């Protein structure tokens, strides 16, 4: 089962069209292995992107050197997935008990 230890989801906010274009450039940086959950649209809409651990530092440095604002939307993706799985397991156990 694929795990996502150390992955974070960043919410990136462009302040103008130039920054938007710089964020768009990230889509072409294949070596970062980014997964855009919410793509680049317009300045009013934030971009959400899952960043693998091995790319975190580079992506954050890229954003900071270009003065692009970002926040960490999901700090620890794997922890969230494990919580989700636990909830599903609990439902399954409860269902089993009922039947």
């Amino acid at each position, binding site marked *: 089962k694929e795990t996502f230890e150390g992955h974070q*989801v960043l919410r990136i906010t462009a302040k103008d069209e130039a920054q938007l274009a710089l964020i768009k450039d990230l889509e072409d940086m294949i070596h970062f292995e980014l997964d855009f959950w919410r793509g680049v649209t317009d300045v009013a809409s934030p971009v959400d992107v899952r960043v693998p651990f091995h790319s975190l530092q580079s992506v954050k440095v890229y954003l900071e050197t270009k003065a692009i604002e970002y926040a960490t939307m999901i700090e620890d993706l794997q922890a969230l*997935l494990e919580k989700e799985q636990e909830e599903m397991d609990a439902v399954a156990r409860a269902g089993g008990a009922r039947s």
Partner: protein
Amino acid sequence: TDSFDYANYHTISEIYNFQDMLVRENPNLVSKIVIGQSYEGRPLSVLKFSTGANRPGLWIDTGIHSREWVTQASGTWFAKKIATAYGSDPALTAILNNMDIFLLIMTNPDGFAYTQTNNRMWRKTRKPNPGSSCVGVDPNRNWDAGFGEPGASNNPCSETYRGPRANSESEVKSIVDFVRSHGNLKSFISIHSYSQMLLYPYGYTSTPAKDQAELHSLAKKAITALASLYGTRYRYGSIINTIYQASGGTIDWTYNQGIKYSYTFELRDTGDYGFLLPANQIIPTAEETWLALMVIMKHAYKNAY
């Protein structure tokens, strides 16, 4: 289905069992049509809600992007809602006395199974791509509407890979065949998450749809109804103007087939979890979306074309 836990996420087999149970409980209203199968051989089962023969139809699908779990969960809630509201909700009863509703909850079953067993982040289909180690096609870029134009990727490793040709994915081709053979669908609503938008054609071209004015005003009505429950604010407009250019998309194809009321939803975004929406958001999301669906379905019923 009364004891089904609508407030939690479920496995693919639980959802398939739920569908069968709903059919058994409502034999005069609900039936199951298998319109095809996925690459890995899972059934593409459509719930048909019908009170008579030879009716025009309204289509809803959920989960074409498998990782957007709130959509399949909402689809399950919609199915129960339709079954219980018929006979008690005058608006839905009127619709179902004159039209059929088709609901495809598990639009990308291989992807969904994969999100639950191997990779929660999986969005595409699961068919291998010859010559590439990357698997799957984005089934919302695989339709024959501007296929291959800008707004989709030709790289099999991309999340928006369009596939080798339009309808290459059996999950897409099965719906295409069904829509064509039915020939009388009046609305087609494809449900995604997240980012809170209600969108109409086109995505592959900036040429406005010929019904844009009507689609726009109906979208406004629908999102107003949606917001009336919990205040969730949606943006609305054509895909290309509201999000970005996207070619080979579902509703562009359905609209070009003559299904005027073609819409796609992007459901609720709490701003914290992306598409990993906590299970306690499922019912509020489904409830508010239902209000918008009803606006569109009522409009399609009252404005025959």
